């Protein structure tokens, strides 16, 4: 995991290394400062000449300046190193997701990917900076301070041997105990926030049923529950500070005691008064470093979870790969299914699609009907190799789809997905997803085919009209027509519409089909629909049920021979034909 994350340092390596180096300088100076200070105090004690004092002063100021510069540089580099690291991390994550196949995408929810790319990266970024700054600083400080205090106080430094374990183990113990509690209470806290979200989303329901007081009661209970748990944990953490104080005070009592003895009995020769003050300063430094280390321990443990989630994405490899010698030319729009079976999860028992054999000649129009869960969408997704078959093979233009270059294949097999999305940007920008180099005339041409041109030009800004995220400012039917136009812009050999005209009125729907028939005679068209009317004039209609193609034929043939088809047909036309 660490190795994977380290790989994201890249161009920030220099800054990542410089940060602790300058930190080293800062710590070194910070630790020698008390020593020189002691000399200064001693020289004042000795009533030394002013020049002496000034000399020490000058050295100290110079050291402080150096220490400040080191500190500033270290902080400066740490900032760019950590922000750059986070940038690379986000870049890699995003790139990884872009490489995902459909089955990879199915595995991660959108919300979880967004969290990984934002909150989790920020947490790891903070931990990273913590590590290159404090995790270097604290141990260095600790070592320096211990060495210096031994040099200065000799055996008195043994006091630390007593104090450090008390503090170190104490802090670790608390952190270890608090950690699982924290994790548990955070989960509860998340649940609380989820219930708020539910409430906000369902506000109309709450108000309609006059459940405001009920909701308040429910929230109060949950909120108090969270409060109690957090209070318990924080009470546990309340021991941290007193423990720290205990350690400091032990030093404050023992060091002067032993020092006084040494200083007085030696008459100030083996140890001086100034050394006492410095020893105490070192004591503080040592204890502070320990405190910091325990905090880092907590911080890293917490961000470990975030790091794990990030690496989970980075470690996921696309389930689909390009063949070694990919074919980049698709000969024609014929589609063949040969004994195709498919399941989404290799471990699943039931097949989503079983024993499909089909031959669709280039240029044919094929309608696909079937209830929810009958695997219509699954069937068409295999054609542009959005998933790989489990058994058998799917051929496009007579070649197994797995032998094509994926991009070449997908450019020739345009799919208008059922759950389709427009992106924030102008109409033209959205359309050009199909072909970035398309001319304006080309845009108009495909929009006319998709019956979208009329409503686009009806708006004063026309093709420059801004579409809001998710296409929120166009109606469902308009959105579907834009999505069809976008796919047409690819000039594909095969066009697949997955329930893409469900919100389009029947008349427009008919016009679109007519345009397809007349303008795109050579394109193979596969149309999944709920309405029989949308497919009844197709060359071939497939009726699907429970993962199998249970019947195929023309409208008339199926009406005569297929129960399901007849049932759907009558249920849909009953209303209209009685009266009209």
């Amino acid at each position: 995991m660490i190795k994977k994350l380290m790989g994201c340092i890249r161009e920030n390596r220099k800054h990542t290394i410089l940060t602790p180096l300058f930190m080293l300088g800062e710590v070194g100076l910070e630790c020698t400062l008390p020593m020189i200070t002691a000399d200064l105090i001693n020289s004042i004690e000795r009533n030394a000449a002013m020049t002496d004092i000034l000399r020490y002063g000058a050295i100290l100021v110079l050291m402080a300046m150096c220490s400040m510069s080191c500190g500033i540089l270290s902080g400066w580099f740490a900032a760019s190193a950590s922000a750059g690291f986070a940038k690379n991390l986000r870049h890699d994550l995003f790139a990884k997701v872009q490489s995902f196949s459909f089955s990879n995408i199915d595995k991660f929810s959108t919300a979880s990917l967004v969290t990984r790319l934002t909150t989790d990266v920020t947490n790891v970024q903070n931990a990273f900076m913590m590590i290159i700054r404090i995790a270097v600083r604290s141990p260095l400080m600790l070592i320096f301070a211990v060495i210096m205090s031994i040099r200065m106080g000799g055996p008195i430094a043994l006091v630390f041997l007593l104090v450090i374990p008390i503090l170190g183990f104490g802090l670790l113990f608390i952190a270890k105990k608090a950690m699982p509690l924290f994790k548990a209470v955070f989960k509860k806290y998340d649940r609380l926030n989820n219930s708020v979200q539910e409430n906000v989303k369902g506000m109309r329901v709450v108000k309609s049923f006059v459940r405001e007081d009920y909701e308040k009661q429910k929230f109060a209970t949950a909120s108090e529950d969270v409060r109690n748990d957090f209070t318990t944990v924080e009470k546990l953490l309340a021991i941290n500070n007193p423990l720290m104080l205990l350690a400091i005070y032990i030093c404050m009592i023992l060091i002067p005691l032993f020092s006084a003895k040494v200083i007085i009995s030696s008459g100030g020769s083996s140890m001086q008064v100034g050394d006492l003050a410095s020893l105490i300063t070192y004591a503080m430094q040592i204890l502070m470093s320990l405190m910091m280390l325990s905090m880092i321990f907590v911080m890293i443990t917490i961000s470990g979870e975030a790091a794990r989630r990030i690496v989970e994405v980075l470690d996921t490899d696309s389930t689909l790969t390009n063949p070694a010698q990919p074919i980049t030319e698709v000969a024609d729009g014929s589609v063949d299914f040969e004994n195709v079976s498919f399941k989404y999860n290799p471990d699943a028992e039931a097949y989503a699609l079983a024993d499909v054999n089909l031959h669709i000649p280039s240029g044919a129009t094929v309608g696909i009907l079937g209830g929810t869960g009958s695997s219509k969408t699954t069937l068409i997704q295999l054609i542009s190799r959005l998933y790989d078959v489990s058994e058998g093979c799917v051929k496009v233009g007579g070649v197994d789809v797995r032998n094509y270059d994926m991009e070449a294949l997908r450019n020739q097999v345009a799919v208008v997905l059922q759950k389709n999305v427009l992106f924030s940007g102008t109409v033209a920008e959205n359309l050009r997803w199909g072909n970035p180099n398309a001319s304006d005339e080309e845009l108009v041409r495909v929009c006319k085919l998709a019956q979208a041109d009329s409503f686009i030009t009806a708006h004063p800004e026309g093709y420059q009209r801004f579409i809001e995220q998710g296409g929120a400012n166009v109606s469902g039917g308009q959105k579907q027509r834009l999505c069809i136009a976008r796919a047409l812009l690819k000039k594909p050999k095969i066009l697949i519409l997955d329930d893409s005209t469900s919100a389009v009125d029947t008349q427009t729907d008919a016009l679109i089909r007519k345009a397809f028939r007349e303008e795109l005679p050579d394109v193979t068209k596969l149309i999944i629909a709920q309405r029989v009317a949308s497919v009844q004039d197709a060359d071939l209609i497939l009726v699907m049920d429970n993962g199998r193609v249970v019947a195929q034929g023309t409208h008339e043939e199926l009406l005569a021979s297929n129960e399901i088809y007849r049932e759907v047909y009558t249920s849909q036309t009953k209303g209209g034909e009685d009266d009209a």
Partner: protein
Amino acid sequence: MPKPQMGPGMGRGPMGKGPGGKGEMPKARKGTMGRVLRLLMEDYKGPFLLAMLFMTLYSLGNITPTIFIKNITDVIERFLSGRSWSDARPEIMNILILMIVVFVLTIAFNYAFARLMAVITQGFLDKMRKRMFNAMQQLPIKYFDAHGHGDIMSHYTNDIDTLRQLVSQSLPRLFQSGIMLVGMLGIMLYYSVNLMVVVLVGVFGMTFAVKHIGGKSASNFIRQQKAIGEVESFVEEIMNGQKVVKVFCHEEASQRDFDKVNGQLCEAATKATRFANILGPVMGNIGNMLYVLIAIAGSAFIALGAANYSLSGLIHGNFGALLELSVVISFLHIAKQFTGQVNGIAQQFNSIVMALAGADRIFRLMDEAPEADEGYVTLVNAEELPDGSLREADHRTGVWAWRHPHKADGTVTFERLRGDVRLFDVDFSYVEGKKVLEDVTLWAEPGQKIAFVGATGAGKTTITNLINRFYDLEDGKIRYDGINITKIKKPDLRRSLGVVLQDVNLFTGTVMDNIRYGKLDATDEECIQAAKLANAHDFITRLPQGYDTMLTSNGANLSQGQRQLISIARAAVADPPVMILDEATSSIDTRTEALVQQGMDALMKGRTVFVIAHRLSTVRNADAIMVLDHGKIIERGSHADLIEQKGTYYKLYTGAFELE
């Protein structure tokens, strides 16, 4: 020094979704800090003051080491020439014993303070959350239209978290540092005014640094928040359409766009962190230099034999005497502590700015005007007297009546709840000047079914929103059983109306809980009965735990159609005389659709129903159909009438128009 945050919301919550994320992090209004303190006092006056007392005592105790060390140094100095430890020992031991006593007390105070603060902080957050939530429940629907869910959520996550930071860290820290500073000023004043002036000069330099660097840091943090918000919304949009990205081979293009926003975030983050990072070393080393300055100044004073002005001199009558060496040495300690405290305050700078902005946003939510309700007519259980008149009953009778007090003559009349709803010349607009409804007049007698038909934005949903008073009319009048609905208390009005919305919202809980939402005191039998009526019973019993199956994330484990069935059952158990139904448009398969359809039909039986219709069969069975276009009723009548007219309805019906 960045500290690991231990508390709720650590890096959680929809970052950047909040107002902060959009880059408008408005400065907190004046008085925000005061308001936080007032509320804190209101909730935890005793404990908070006690905690502050403990902290004061602890802080005072924390200054004593300096004094003790000075005393010990004095003793050492005196006995230095005698070289006799045994002579010095009793004096030093006395000091040490005193130290132990003081230290034990100090630790005790500190622990007591920390425990109290844990209770106060979490308790205060709990109360604030509840305040916010309770205020939110009273807000009109308009508020939820105008504010994104993400924005509202961020009050509960990000903003509450900044408040936690403020109460648990910043406030005590400020208070403590304040006390320490005052205490140390006192000590300095006591020993030497001359040296105190030197210290203050140094502190002045530090304040300058904080203002300069801290200010830059805060403004860059705000920019960083904005950049995070941009990255987040970009990622969210692309991830939502990831499959579309795949089928259009648009991966590289989106990566390029992402790198752009990602680069901006990196730049903003670098600057923000940079300034935060360098504040520490700058402040620390100004402190170091101050140390040297004092040492030199002190020695100079001694060498030059300058007079020392101090409070102790004033007390002991040797005001203006020579500066003692031990005073200089203790000053060095004090200076270190003093600058440490100033540094501590400086480190709180960012979080205080952020916390006040967060607190302000919470207050803004709490200050929103609640949904007004000037109604006085209530819905009560009633029983019929032999003469046919009604009187109020104190138990469930199955008969409901409007209790209508008349202000003019002080009498109370009872009107039977029948479900007669009439709209007279109703005008309405969401945004002033943009009429959504114009001159809408319609009526539904008890048991009638009124269908609304028309394109998106024609105003169908708006009419239903006016009947249950999610919004108030601009002009015109709506009467329910002859009573103007503005006179009816909103909760009572809404209780008399059942609603099945197109977008189903289920709550975390069991299936049974969700059905019972319609009538909280419904028995299990009633709920099951309602589920049977709604055609939901069959599929529910097939769920792994039947009615006890847990539903999470809006019933994610159910299909769209199943969720609709539950919401129908929920409305059925409430059993209101008037129903508002918004039929779903989303394509569910034919079989489930038939179930939903039957459920809806069963629910409509015997009630006054307003239905926003998307299905032919629903429309055909309606007593009256209202065809809406741009907020006006353009055709009305029965199915047969309208077909005959061969107008808009006819075209819609024959599929020549887009319904949705």
